[in-house]
């Protein structure tokens, strides 16, 4: 199962926390064990001093006894010097021992008894020495034969061995404690180190695993991207092909529509030529002009790369040129001049505009100049607000609003219908001479 970044963060924090606590534990344990080691060391020193004083005391007592026996056996006073020294050492070592054990309640009775025994022993030895010095050999021997001296020495040894033994126990306990401390320290360090190694190992493994999974995910993304790009490329090619086919189909359709409309226009023209009635011929001629205007749009479309819009300058120029030719052929004497700004407009609206211009120009040719000479001008220009204006003007007889319509009125209705489709406003401007029809329309459809 893949690991999440949250899991990695939490696990890493947890592991580092464990490592930190372990380190803290090692430090705390080390401090604690150091304190214990210090206490044990003090115990060792005190016990060693106590033991030393006990042994020295026993040695002094034995030296005193052996010196006394030497004097009793030989009468040689050279033994009295070490005897006196040993007695003094006995008292000094006992004082030391008493000071060292002053705080040990369990030794109070023992020390009292030991003090009494030492006092009796020294007195027993002094008595025998005194008898010997007074040449009372038998009395001195009698003192020895009571075995009191041995009993006192045995009792002193009993107490001293008790102190030494208990001191040895303290020494042993302190040394064992120190050894235990060292063992504890060793184990805590080893275990702590092990935990830290495990923590570091855990973090490393986690990081490596996470990094491996990140790399793996990145490789998978790269692979997916590469696959996606390939699929997009194929899809794009498919779409381009489909678009080309669609465009081709649209062009074909426009071509066929344009050809069909041209055929219809030719058929209307043939029909018009076959008629003798001039009015009918004019009607058909106008119809032909309208059809041509529509056909011209389709003609533009199948030669254009973008069927959604129409280049108005090329389209309208073609419509006006053809209309001028047609109107000349029908006997019209006026001339046509136009100024078309290069603008683009949606196809449907362009058809409406083309039909509207055809109607307005045809009207101008037919009615502005009754004598047949004059100029009709067409101007298309863009406005600031995304709109454009179309002006068809002449210098003819002008337009009388109150007069009756000179034709059927169809052309005017068509113009209004086209203007309505284009969401345009049509107005006729007052001029000193002639007429000016102005259509203002948006270049784009309202959203």
């Amino acid at each position, binding site marked *: 199962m893949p690991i999440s970044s949250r899991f990695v963060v939490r696990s890493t924090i947890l592991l580092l926390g464990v490592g930190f606590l372990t380190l803290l534990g090692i430090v705390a344990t080390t401090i604690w064990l150091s304190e214990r080691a210090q206490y044990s060391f003090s115990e060792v020193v005190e016990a060693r001093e106590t033991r030393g004083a006990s042994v020295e005391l026993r040695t002094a007592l034995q030296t005193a006894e052996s010196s006394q026996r030497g004097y009793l056996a030989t009468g040689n006073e050279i033994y009295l010097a070490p005897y006196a020294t040993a007695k003094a050492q006995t008292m000094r070592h006992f004082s030391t021992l008493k000071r060292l054990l002053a705080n040990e309640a369990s030794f109070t009775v023992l020390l009292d008894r030991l003090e009494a025994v030492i006092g009796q022993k020294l007195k027993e030895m002094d008595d025998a020495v005194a008898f010997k010095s007074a040449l009372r050999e038998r009395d001195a021997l009698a003192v020895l034969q009571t075995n009191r001296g041995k009993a006192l020495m045995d009792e002193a040894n*009993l107490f001293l061995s*008790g102190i030494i*033994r208990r001191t040895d126990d303290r020494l042993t306990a302190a040394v064992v404690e120190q050894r235990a401390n060292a063992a504890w320290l060793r184990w805590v360090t080893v275990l702590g180190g092990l935990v830290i190694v495990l923590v570091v190992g855990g973090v490393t493994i986690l990081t490596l695993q996470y990094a491996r999974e990140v790399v793996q995910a990145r490789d998978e993304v790269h692979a997916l991207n590469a696959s996606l790009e390939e699929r997009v490329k194929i899809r794009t090619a498919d779409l381009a092909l489909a678009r080309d086919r669609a465009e081709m189909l649209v062009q074909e359709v426009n071509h066929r529509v344009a050809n069909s409309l041209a055929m219809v226009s030719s058929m209307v023209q043939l029909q018009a030529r076959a008629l003798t009635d001039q009015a009918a011929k004019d009607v058909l001629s106008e119809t032909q002009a309208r059809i041509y205007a529509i056909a011209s749009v389709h003609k533009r479309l199948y030669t254009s790369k973008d069927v959604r819009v129409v280049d108005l300058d090329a389209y309208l120029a073609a419509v006006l040129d053809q209309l001028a030719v047609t109107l000349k052929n029908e006997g019209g004497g006026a001339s046509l001049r136009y100024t078309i700004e290069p603008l683009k407009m949606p196809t449907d609206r362009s058809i409406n505009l083309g039909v509207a211009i055809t109607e307005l120009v045809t009207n101008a040719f037919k009615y502005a100049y009754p004598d047949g000479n004059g100029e009709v001008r067409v101007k298309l220009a863009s406005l600031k607000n995304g709109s454009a204006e179309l002006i068809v003007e002449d210098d003819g007889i002008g337009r009388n609003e109150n007069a009756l319509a000179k034709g059927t009125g169809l052309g005017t209705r068509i113009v209004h219908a086209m203007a309505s489709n284009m969401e345009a406003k049509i107005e006729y401007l007052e001029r000193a001479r002639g007429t000016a029809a102005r259509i203002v329309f948006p270049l784009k459809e309202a959203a």
Partner: protein
Amino acid sequence: MLRVLPALCALLFAGVVSAQDGPQGITTPVVLPSFDPSAPSCSAPPGLQKILTFAQDNERQFMQGVAKGLAAAAKDRGFQFRVVLANNDPRLMIEQVQAQLADRAGAVVAAPVHPPSLAPLLQQVIWSGAYVGTVVPPPAVTLLNAPQYLTGRVLAEAAAAYIRGRLNGKANVVLLTHDSLQFLSPRFAAMRDVLQDMPGVTIVADISPLTVNKEGGLNMMRTILIAHPDVDVVLGADTVVLGALQALREAKKSRPDQFLGGIDGEPEAVAEIKSGNSPYKASVSLSSPVFGYALGQFAADWMAGKSVPQAMDILPSLLTQANIAQYEADFENPGAVFTDPNRRDAYLKMYGNICFDTRDRYVNFPWSSERK
């Protein structure tokens, strides 16, 4: 004790003067051969009464057993039996033995209070033709001794087995010795020899009570506990070990897993062993009625002109709960033990031969079968 020493010394000197009246006996230590029960008879001592007297040092149980055996033997052999109790008074004992000498008593068995002061008087008794048996010190026609080293060893080995088996080889041991009787020192030498081979054993005290009785043991153990509060094993004579047990109980330091063992088979020690849950685990019996009975029999034989042993070992028997019944039966009827050779040999071992005609060969040195 110090007050009676001058008097004892005076008596001792008096004894030395009188000792010139007769042979000194065997004063140089020798190794005695085994007793020959079929040795030829000799003359019977003339002019002596069929009186068997026991000069008893004190009323400790061990000596009561001796008296019991002697009384049984006297009864079996038709002797008048007397007990003179010195109550640890050496001077009184001397007077009591002098009285027996004056009465022409045929046999005196003594447990000396102060052997050096009594020895000259016992020599006079021997010179008078009477039979003298002593419990341990010389001089004597028949000297009763115990193989002290063996006795101590039997007890120490029992303790060692217990330490190994129940105390995991570790023990703090107290040896309550007996300084006033130096011939008992081999007992404690044996104990030290056995215990020194055990690395887990520490002899925390090796000391003699001032008096070898229960009170002495009590006082000494109280002192020992001041210096060594934890004691696992106590060895010594039964009386002192019983005192030590009392001290342990007073100090609430007694435990069922302790090993207290003594020598002498004292009835109180036996009762402790029989109780089953006492720290007192063993006693080495020197069956005093058995050897007392034997000494009585030998006294009668002597009076009849028969050859008797010069010395006799009372062999140690380790008393435990397992064999205590047999021990008590033998204690009550020592005559039955003596008449059964197998059972007698389990208790007694006899050395040398002596009779009235060869009484100048009496033992006058501290004899021990263990002397090399």
